[in-house]
């Protein structure tokens, strides 16, 4: 993070014409209609209005991406909305179903807890050795809260991840949306120097949680370290140990999701802690989409490094012409680069040759997922708000 900032002339990408932008937005428009409009359904009016607003919102953001040639700020609008509205709908559901945000042990044993993607890495070893999973729910459909079975959810996640790599964290993770929203609040970072070795934090948490989950046969991250338990479902404390767990959740949330993002203007939970993010990084090796630095254009001004919300660029990586493995493909560096040296890239092709084509191909996949996965969550959150307003 400690970098010298110069102020080179910013070369803005050319704006597309409205007609061309609309044409490029058409596939997403059709996809949104498919996702949000169900004529003849018996949904409440709040849900219908929420779905319509969400569809317009998602299509408008994509249109602006096409029109301006920039990605980051429009994607951020979506992700922050997702981060803010997810707890609204989720907590409301919990109160309707359970009357509380606290989840008692009996509910966990019965598998009546919604499946979250965060424990996926910790499920692998127990599943491989015992053919069952260390998570409250069933691996195949069996009437649990995850009615399609956790295997189906994991399958969907895997398919999307193989295409986008760690793009999941920028276009689907509602938890990341919360801290991205907090990081956007201050105008300038108050803390600008953080030891780069803390970047290894997510890998350490991943290693520890995978090993502990295998040893204890419980989702150790969910039980002990998930900061987002503070805004989703916490453990219904019936003893001192339960109380300690909840205190840990709240402290981690306050520190990593509120205070540090505010002070650093970075996604600190993602950068220093999130084990799922570390696991997701591995798939950046498989995904064909990536961000590269065109060394012939790069002036080493480090603007991209400062702009990256995830500390995924270092001087060494820029010199190599690539990002670190943890790149979330949010597009912040590409939009910030004054020389247009940071470019979208498809593996196996020449760097900086038709980068806009690579960007488009990536965005179609990423935004289609955003509409399907995040859009439905936004619509649910909005419907909840309308329900209370009515």
């Amino acid at each position, binding site marked *: 993070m400690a970098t010298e900032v110069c102020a080179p002339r910013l070369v803005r990408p050319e704006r597309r014409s409205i007609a061309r932008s609309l044409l490029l937005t058409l596939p997403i428009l059709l996809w949104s209609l498919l996702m949000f409009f169900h004529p003849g359904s018996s949904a409440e009016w709040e849900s219908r209005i929420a779905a319509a607003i969400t569809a317009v919102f998602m299509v408008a953001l994509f249109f602006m991406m096409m029109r301006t040639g920039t990605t980051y700020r429009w994607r951020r609008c979506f992700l922050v909305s997702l981060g803010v509205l997810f707890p609204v709908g989720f907590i409301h559901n919990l109160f309707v179903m359970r009357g509380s945000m606290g989840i008692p042990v009996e509910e966990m044993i019965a598998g009546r807890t919604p499946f979250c993607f965060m424990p996926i890495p910790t499920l692998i*070893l127990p599943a491989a050795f015992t053919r069952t999973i260390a998570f409250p729910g069933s691996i195949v459909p069996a009437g649990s809260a995850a009615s399609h079975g956790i295997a189906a959810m994991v399958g969907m996640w895997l398919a999307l991840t193989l295409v986008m790599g760690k793009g999941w964290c920028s276009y689907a993770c509602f938890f990341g949306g919360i801290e991205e929203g907090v990081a956007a609040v201050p105008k300038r970072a108050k803390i600008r120097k953080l030891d780069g070795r803390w970047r290894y934090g997510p890998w*350490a*948490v991943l290693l520890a949680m995978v*090993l502990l989950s*295998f*040893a204890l046969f419980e989702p150790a991250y969910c039980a002990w370290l998930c900061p987002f338990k503070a805004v989703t479902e916490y453990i219904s404390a019936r003893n*001192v*140990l339960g109380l300690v767990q909840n205190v840990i959740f709240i402290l981690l949330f306050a520190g990593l999701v509120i205070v540090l993002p505010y002070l650093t203007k970075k996604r600190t939970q993602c950068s220093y802690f999130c084990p799922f993010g570390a696991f997701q990084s591995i798939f950046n090796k498989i995904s064909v989409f990536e961000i590269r630095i065109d060394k012939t254009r790069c002036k080493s001004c480090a603007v991209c490094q400062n702009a990256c919300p995830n500390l995924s660029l270092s001087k060494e990586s820029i010199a190599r012409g690539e990002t670190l493995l943890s790149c979330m493909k949010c597009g912040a560096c590409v939009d910030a680069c004054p020389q247009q040296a940071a470019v979208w890239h498809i593996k196996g092709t020449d760097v900086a040759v038709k980068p806009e084509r690579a960007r488009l191909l990536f965005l179609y996949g990423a935004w289609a997922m955003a509409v399907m996965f995040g859009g439905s969550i936004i619509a649910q959150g909005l419907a909840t708000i309308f329900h209370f307003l009515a």
Partner: protein
Amino acid sequence: MRDRRLLAVYCASPTFGWRRRYSARMVAPVLFGEALVLGLASGPACIAACGPVLVPAMLTGQGGMRPGVRTLSVFLAARLMGYLLFAVVAWELGTLASLLPASRMLLMGGVNVILAGVLFWYAYSAGHICGHACSEPKLVTIGAAESHRTRGAAVLGLLTGLSLCPPFVAAGFRAAQLGSVFQALLFFTFFFVGTTVWFVPYVGLGCVVRNQAVVTVARMAMALIAVYYLLMGIAMLLGRKAYGY
């Protein structure tokens, strides 16, 4: 007292009596074959239970197959010592009475707290042992912690040997039915051999490249695992006050 009464009831049971009568004449290969098979069957649970301690410890050590084998051998030898020590002490102090729940919680709580302390020390010291005259302490110094690693592996092995993981408890109850402490020791030894087969893949950790990233990750993970053991250890020592039952 309550534990001893429970044990007395158990020892008076027909099954126990039958086994005591016939144990002397029992064919040794069958008995120790049983221990071996129990160890083999319990292996996955054993590698899972030892994983949080062993994996980061090996990753902070020197790379290569030979150092990996050496560290694992020291760890396993110390683990066997832990097994045998437990078998002898428990047998002499009341025929494995300490396997009963109340005593078990206290023993495990104590072992977990000590384990946490050793892991903290291991994680901290792995970064401060310099093989050369470095002017300032570095976060990671790779390949300069030879004696530290051997001692550390031995202590960790001994402590995991004393941790009463489920397979160990199963073996302990079976060993309690044997006629003499010598037989119990042999039973535990064969049980150990059975579980050890499952540890062989851990040698592969020696092949993982050692660089600043890997060693730092292992040290951070070790510290995190130590915090977990510390919390659980304190909770076990507090017993009802922590768990509420």
